[in-house]
Each structure stands twice: as C-alpha cells, then as structure tokens.
C-alpha cells in the first residue's frame, strides 16, 4: 500500500531484497552463529533496571575523561604524566627525609634501639 503511493519505496524494496537474496546463503549462517553467541550473553543484561545502564554510561564517560587527561597519547616516550611525577617527587622527598632522620639517629628502628641499649648496658657492666 505504501508502494502504491511512492514508486521509490518499490525501488528500495527491490534493491534490499536482491541484496538479501545474493548474500543470504553466505551471511545468514554467520548471522545464526552470532545469534547463538548473543543468546549466551543476553542473560547478563537485566530488564527493568535502566539505572544500571545509566551508571555504566556515566562510568565510561568519566573514566574516558580522566584517562585522557592522564594519558592523552602525545607525550614523548619515557615521559611520565604530571600526577606520577608529583607522586614520585613526594616519595623521594619523604625517603630522603627519613634517611636523614635515621642518619641523625632521631628515628632508630626498634631492633637498633634494643641493640644500642644492650651495648650501653654492657659498657656500664664492664665499668
């Protein structure tokens, strides 16, 4: 009925049907194989909980923005993103501070402290 109103619909329908006719023997079996795979995956997608899909969408968008901000893809090889450089700088700074304090003897580990105490006691006894 639609075809009676517009001849172009008939032309489009003819083209589509001829394409389906030509490719059907090759592509339809592959399509059937795909359906078998899809039927396995489908139960993992819940019905009646659109919020789940909205959350996935949100997570994808936010993680996309964050990941692009950190790894935009144009930095030279070996270049570390600023966030990691700052983190490394902080770690190095903290490490140096700790090493310095240990050298000064302000922050001796428990074992070392015990050793020192024992040595001190030994010296006192000898005296």
């Amino acid at each position, binding site marked *: *009925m*639609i075809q009676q109103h517009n001849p172009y619909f008939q032309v489009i329908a003819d083209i*589509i049907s001829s*394409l*389906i006719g030509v*490719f*059907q023997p*090759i*592509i*339809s*079996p*592959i*399509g*059937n*194989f*795909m*359906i078998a795979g*899809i039927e396995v*995956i*489908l139960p993992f*997608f819940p*019905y*009646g909980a*659109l919020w789940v*899909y*909205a959350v*996935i*969408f*949100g*997570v*994808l*968008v936010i*993680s*996309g*923005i964050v*990941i*692009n*901000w950190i790894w*935009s*893809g*144009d*930095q*030279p*090889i070996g*270049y570390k*993103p*600023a966030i990691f450089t700052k983190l490394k700088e902080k770690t190095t700074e903290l490490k140096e501070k700790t090493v310095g304090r240990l050298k000064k003897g302000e922050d001796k580990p428990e074992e070392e402290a015990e050793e020192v105490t024992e040595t001190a006691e030994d010296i006192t006894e000898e005296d």
Partner: protein
Amino acid sequence: MSSARDKIGGLVKKTAIKNVLRGIVFGGLYVVITIIIPFITFTWIQYITICGIEIGYTRERYEQIIYWVAAYGLIISGCAFFAYSSPKQSIRRGVFSLVQILLNCLYIWSYKFSGATEASFTLVGWGDLSVNVTQMILMYLGIYFLLIILKIYDLSDFVINREKIRLERRKF
C-alpha cells in the same frame, strides 16, 4: 628542563581537550543514532495510520522496545565516547571499538527479541498482515561478524606495532 616539561605538559593538555571534545561529538552522535531517532520512530509508528489502518505495537511491546533501545543505546554511546576520545591507533581505542561492535550486535538483536522486527496489523475485510524483517537482521549480524574480524585485526596491529605507532604519532 622545567620549561621543556611545561611545554610538553601544555601540549598534553591541549591534546587531552581535543580528544575529549572528539569523544563528546561522537558520543552525542551515537546518542542521536541509537536512542533519539529510534525513540522518535517507534513513538511515531505507535500512532501512525496508513489508509485508515493503524500500524502500531501494543503498549507493553512498545515499552519493551524503548527500554532495550535506551539500555543498549546508553552503553554503546558510552563506549563510543571512550573509543573516540582515545588517541588514534591506540590499544584502548581498538579494545573499545571492538566492544562497541559487539554491543551493536546486541542492540540489533534487541530489535528482534523485543518484537520490533515483527509488525502485524488487521486489514478490515481482508484479514491479518504481518511484516517480518528478521532475515534482514540476520544479514546485518553476518556483516557485523565480518566487522568484528576487522576490528580484531586492527587491535592486533595496534598491539604489535605499538612502538612504531607511538613514534609516528609524535612527529610534530
């Protein structure tokens, strides 16, 4: 040293903004293609009348179709955003393009199981008429299978030639 680092940092930020903008454009495009256009079409079909004959879906079926269109449309659009905002020829773009194609298969198949591919209406005095385009969906899925193979090839290419791609990308 610091100035070179600042220069690189500026360039990285510029690229990141460009990537995110590209992601927004393509994500938006997929929202229009996979959610808005099907929603308008199915709502239109719900109330369409040709030569006095109402061609429509039942309320329940209409809601089911719209639900699956919106659900898969949202995930596909999210994946499209992630894929298109990633650098060209990167592994993450390859992975998400592949995931997107797989989701497209589910999206197309959702038309079938939600009943959107079968429309039936009654011609008064003539009988019942039903239109079934399942065969066309099968053909589409076959084409998508070939696309999946192509995307897997792309992904393996991105993984194997990673260093080469990265070097070529940085030729300013």
